[in-house]
């Protein structure tokens, strides 16, 4: 990797291009919507060909097992009957949707686009931090950043042997086409003021899918249609929805939703439209279920897990609870109901009094939390005010499931801009990097 040159000399030009091309995300502050640029650092994360090959195998294995788990949970539930996963972990999960019982999505694929969050430990080992199987976002950022970086710094790419990542739209389109039930592909967005609107519209442009909102959709004869401006209708065969399950169909889920499509679940149940990702996936990316994913891999695939989970404890189990209560100050505790970096507490940040309170909360609500050892993951260099400094960073890898399960040879590397923080989420001020996978 020593021969690789980075586009660090063109920071200004690249950021100007990002601005020009509208690479923004929305954020609500004090009840007001603001669009801001997603801070981009030009020094990429570099992954060797060997490392990527290893990650690729592990990620495909994991996502295949998760898809099998989802089918099992909404059908025969063998994994519960065989006592691999306690049933309360499934049924108490807010992501488990009884309304999805018995529904078989096209080709039995539930998670078409999986965003798997990993970190690389200082020992060089990769650890899975989280599976995101509902509406993982972020692929568009390294995708457009690569295009713009290649424009501003072509020399960096001429000698380095970096795998081109600009095939993401092809992978996504192919995943949509492979499950399309007849009709066009569409991306359903909650609208212009959604935090990820840039991504919705950019992916629609690149995949040729229609970008739609709920007020132009309707279900008729258990089929989903888009109204056209001449009063006609166009059938939608695959809907890549960027709206959470609970808001997707007010007649099945939250009746107060004003961004959903009435009767969509019925069209989906009838097999007339593929919903991407499928409804009910939240049961598999629940932080509590995460603990059991290695067991799923053994159960469904009869293979040893290739990628490791971060060492995790479930206070639900007495033995684990005892360990968590005794070691709270050195663990990171996650509320299973939260996402986006919220509900994450580092024991080391708590006062003695707060630790005592937290212990009691865990005793009272053991199912609500998981605890993990703090992984000392590798810092990555970023440029800040013209100087190179080191910051915590994770990697969101994207796995796309269609005819085959494939890993995108890139990913979203997010970093913390705060030197003392492990939290990398954009909603909390984090930035992003491109992820370069080497071809040799």
């Amino acid at each position, binding site marked *: 990797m020593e021969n690789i040159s980075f586009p660090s000399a063109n920071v200004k030009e690249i950021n100007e291009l990002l601005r020009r091309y509208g690479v923004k995300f929305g954020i609500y502050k004090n009840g007001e919507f603001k669009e801001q640029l997603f801070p981009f650092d030009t020094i990429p994360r570099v992954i060797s060909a060997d490392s990527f090959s290893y990650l690729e195998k592990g990620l495909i294995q994991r996502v295949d097992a998760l898809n099998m788990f989802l089918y099992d949970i909404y059908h025969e539930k063998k994994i519960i009957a065989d006592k691999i996963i306690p049933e309360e972990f499934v049924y108490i999960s807010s992501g488990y949707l009884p309304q999805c019982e018995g529904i078989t999505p096209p080709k039995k694929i539930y998670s078409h686009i999986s965003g798997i969050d990993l970190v690389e430990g200082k020992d060089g080992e990769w650890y899975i931090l989280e599976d995101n199987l509902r509406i993982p976002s972020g692929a568009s950022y390294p995708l457009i950043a690569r295009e713009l970086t290649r424009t501003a710094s072509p020399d960096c790419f001429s000698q380095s042997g970096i795998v081109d990542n600009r095939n993401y739209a092809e992978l996504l389109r192919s995943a949509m086409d492979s499950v399309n039930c007849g009709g066009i592909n569409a991306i359903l967005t909650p609208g212009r003021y959604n935090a990820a609107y840039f991504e919705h519209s950019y992916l629609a442009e690149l995949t040729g*899918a229609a970008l739609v909102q709920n007020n*132009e959709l309707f279900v008729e004869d258990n089929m989903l249609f888009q109204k056209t401006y001449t009063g006609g209708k166009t059938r939608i065969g695959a809907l890549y929805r960027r709206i959470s399950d609970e808001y997707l169909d007010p007649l099945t889920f939250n009746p107060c939703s004003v961004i959903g499509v009435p009767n969509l679940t019925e069209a989906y149940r009838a097999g007339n439209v593929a919903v991407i990702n499928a409804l009910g996936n939240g049961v598999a990316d629940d932080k509590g279920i995460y603990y059991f994913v290695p067991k799923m891999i053994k159960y469904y695939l009869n293979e040893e897990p290739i990628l490791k989970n971060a060492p995790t404890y479930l206070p639900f189990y007495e033995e684990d609870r005892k360990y968590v209560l005794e070691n709270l100050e050195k663990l990171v505790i996650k509320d299973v109901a939260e996402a986006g970096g919220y509900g994450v507490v580092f024991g080391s940040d708590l006062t003695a009094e707060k630790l005592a309170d937290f212990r009691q909360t865990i005793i009272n609500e053991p199912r609500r939390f998981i605890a993990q050892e703090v992984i000392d993951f590798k810092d990555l260099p970023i440029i800040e005010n013209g100087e190179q400094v080191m910051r915590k960073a994770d990697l969101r890898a994207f796995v796309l499931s269609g005819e085959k399960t494939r890993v995108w040879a890139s990913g979203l590397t997010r970093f913390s801009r705060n030197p003392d923080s492990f939290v990398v989420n954009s909603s909390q001020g984090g930035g992003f990097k491109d992820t370069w996978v080497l071809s040799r």
Partner: protein
Amino acid sequence: MGTISIISVEHSDRLFWLGRYTERFFTTLKALEKLYDSVIDKDQYGYREYLSAFGLSDVYNDYKEFFKSFIFDRSNESSAAYSLSRAYDNGIVLREEISTEALSFIQLALDDLDRAQNSNQGLRLALHPIEDTIFGFWGCVDDHVCDNETRYIIHCGKIIERLDIYLRLKYPFEIIDAEFGRLCRCLSGIPKNSPYHYNQKQLSSLVEIMGLKDGYTEQKDLAVSSLEALFEPTGRS
């Protein structure tokens, strides 16, 4: 499977207003540049005629304050800057129709307008690159959009806006007539059952006014209101 060639109600509306606001920005800028050229050494209060053409009163201390507000002030709904911001608002939801590349020209124009405000260059010189950028935008849209109906809707918006401003500012008949011809060609390309099919009564009224040739200025208010009502459903043929 997957490629779209359909226009939703929402997008047809956005396309039309993207055309209108982009053109409102451009034509306003051009008109103000022409006006600026005359006020610097002829009539320092010449801008009052411009205000009156749009039914606005003079609340400005001098022509410099007027130009600053009408070009750069995004809170002034009659300013070029305001129109450009609204063009962006409409364009951003049309990325997959018009392309990221085309949308980037609007962002570029917004950034250049901010720069022009603080530039030491003469006003007209500072605004030149922005006009080039808008030409780039239209070139990019025409290059990217293959669907004729999409093209007709956005151009309808563009030409209606241009005609509206030209009529209010009493441009020479030949110029107005040429734009009216363009509008008629666009209107004929939009399907009858769409919200952008013309109202026959309003179109006939416009044809009649155009028949007056240079005398159109006597009927310009009627022409402007006919233009505004061109897509109203009442009496639609």
